[in-house]
């Protein structure tokens, strides 16, 4: 995202841009986005969840429309960690710190998401905290990830190393898990169903969404609007969902049927058909509108707080205390 923002800042032209929430305010402040013409985006009001008609990060959705939704939870292998083992723990988040899984735990190289999970483990739900006491707990937990479970850092862990049995547990975005079960060998139904995704049953966990916007210097803003409207129309959004497994906030997509409804992926592939929008064996990966009422968001951090977060993350990455 930083590279994309840097290019936009340097004057590179694009007709559409896919920012994350934490940079949206900066892009607006730097006058790099243009206000959207709502008349050209009828699909937003007709097809998309009401919660995004006036989101907290973009009141009146002046500059952005929602793209995809995701939660951040734990991916796991059922052959080593049955569902009841993870769900039955007093604090399932702390399974990532359980020394009996040492060498088999993975984490994204994404400081906000991994530190958010450390906050959740400690019962801290402000995922943008700058409190010294909160961050010290996170720091201790991150360092413990190295000393106690010898964590591995990997973007591909959720969809590659879990299926290959290199990882048994992994911090995971719901979209990666919904897409990743069939990404790597051994390509058997038993292996697919062996991959699980845990997210708090009360849905009180990290939840977020990505965005689409139009840069101020767009050469074809009308085309950009047409593209966005196409992308957020029900069937097109669902086809995209079927392909990349990141769910769009579509009114017509009943969350209760996403694990039983085949998407475009079933039509274009033969090896994995039938492929539901979300694999039936990981229903927790379905995102619901109510999740945004009870879940917790990662928002922008002040520069000072961001530096503090990064210092902690850097200490973890450097394998301090080893």
């Amino acid at each position, binding site marked *: 995202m*930083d590279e994309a*923002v*840097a290019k936009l*800042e340097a004057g590179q032209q694009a007709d559409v841009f896919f920012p994350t929430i934490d*940079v949206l305010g*900066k892009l607006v*402040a*730097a006058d790099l986005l243009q206000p959207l013409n709502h008349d050209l985006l009828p699909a937003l009001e007709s097809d998309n969840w009401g919660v995004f008609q006036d989101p907290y990060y973009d009141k009146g959705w002046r500059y952005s429309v929602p793209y995809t939704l995701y939660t951040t939870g734990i991916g796991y292998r059922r052959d080593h960690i049955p569902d009841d083992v993870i769900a039955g723990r007093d604090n399932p988040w702390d399974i990532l710190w359980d020394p009996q899984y040492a*060498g088999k735990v*993975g984490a994204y*190289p994404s*400081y906000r998401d991994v530190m958010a999970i450390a906050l959740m483990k400690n019962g801290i739900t402000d995922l943008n905290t700058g409190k010294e006491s909160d961050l010290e707990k996170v720091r201790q937990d991150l360092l413990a990830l*190295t000393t106690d479970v*010898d*964590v*591995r*850092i*990997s973007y591909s862990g959720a969809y590659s190393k879990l299926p*290959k*049995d*290199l990882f048994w547990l992994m911090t995971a975005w719901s979209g990666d898990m919904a897409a990743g079960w069939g990404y790597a060998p051994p390509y058997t139904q038993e292996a697919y169903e062996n991959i699980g995704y845990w997210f708090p049953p009360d849905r009180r966990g990290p939840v977020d969404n990505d965005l689409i916007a139009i840069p101020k210097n767009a050469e074809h803003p009308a085309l950009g609007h047409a593209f966005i409207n196409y992308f957020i129309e029900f069937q097109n959004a669902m086809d995209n969902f079927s392909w990349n497994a990141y769910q769009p906030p579509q009114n017509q997509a009943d969350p209760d049927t996403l694990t039983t409804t085949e998407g475009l992926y079933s039509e274009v592939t033969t090896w994995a058909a039938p492929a539901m929008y979300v694999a039936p064996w990981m229903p927790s990966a379905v995102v619901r509108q109510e999740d945004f009422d009870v879940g917790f968001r990662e928002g922008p951090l002040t*520069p000072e707080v*961001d*530096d503090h977060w*990064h210092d902690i*993350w*850097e*200490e*973890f*990455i*450097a*394998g*301090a*205390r*080893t």
Partner: protein
Amino acid sequence: MPEPSAAPSRRSARRAHRAGSSEGVHYPRWFWPSFSLPAILWLLVLFVLPFYTVISIAFGTVDPIFRSPLPVYQPWYWSTEQFGETLGKVFGIFSPVYIHTFQYVFIASAICLVLGYAIAYYVARYGGKRKALLLALLISPFWISYLMRMLAWINLLENDGYVNKFLMFLNVVDRPVGWLEGRPSTVILGLVYGYIPYMILPLFGFLDRIDVSLLESGRDLGGSPFSTFFRVTLPLSKPGILAGTIIVTLPMFGDYFTNNLLSGSPRTTMIGNLIDEAYSTTGQGPEMASYVLILMALLIVPMLYYLRSTARTAAGR
């Protein structure tokens, strides 16, 4: 009619001067130095300018909104605060990373040298007419990109990969070895595999140019094969050893991909990973540039030794 002179006349010398061809001709003073112009331009554009930019970022600031690095090119506005902080980390919480890196690079370079020397020696001395073919075969795997080769190693080293299957078939191990579970040995071997051709090529170049009569003289004077090797071949190939070592060592210090792909564990983080991490994180531009400068300062020592050594060798010829 004057008699023809043995010495060239002024006119013919001037003609030859203009033509720039005949022996004993004087060229303008700028003629030969001008040949270095492309190299000077290359250095200015691709080294001096980027290096000054890195310094300007390290001692510069960040954009107040996006926190992207803002280089400060006027030295009188430079701030040393960030550089000082980074230096403090290098000697503090990041010292294990620097120690790892030096250990890994030292061991990997040593393995590259031992293996590379043996291979280069064999090809240079016993390759005969097949030298070019042998070199091409040795280098052939490296026509594939470094990233692809590392990804291939991941498949080979996985729990159910061919390496483990082979070791279990031979009963060397009774269960799969976790090669990819954050082992320093895997990172070191990855570095060796990635960089060994850059050791072989300069070594071969120097070993191939050693006059065989010098080796024969050593034997004629009563030297055993071993003493001839250690007293003749090895000293004569010292420039090749130094060149090869420098060529493999410098990129190894900045390598981050090998560790990312073959380990991924914070226990094996190298200096290159710190630079990569700072590069990819908002607001850490000055810190990233400081890491680069500190690494360069550390690498200047072996580089100066190499330059001094090659200068001595050249002077001794």
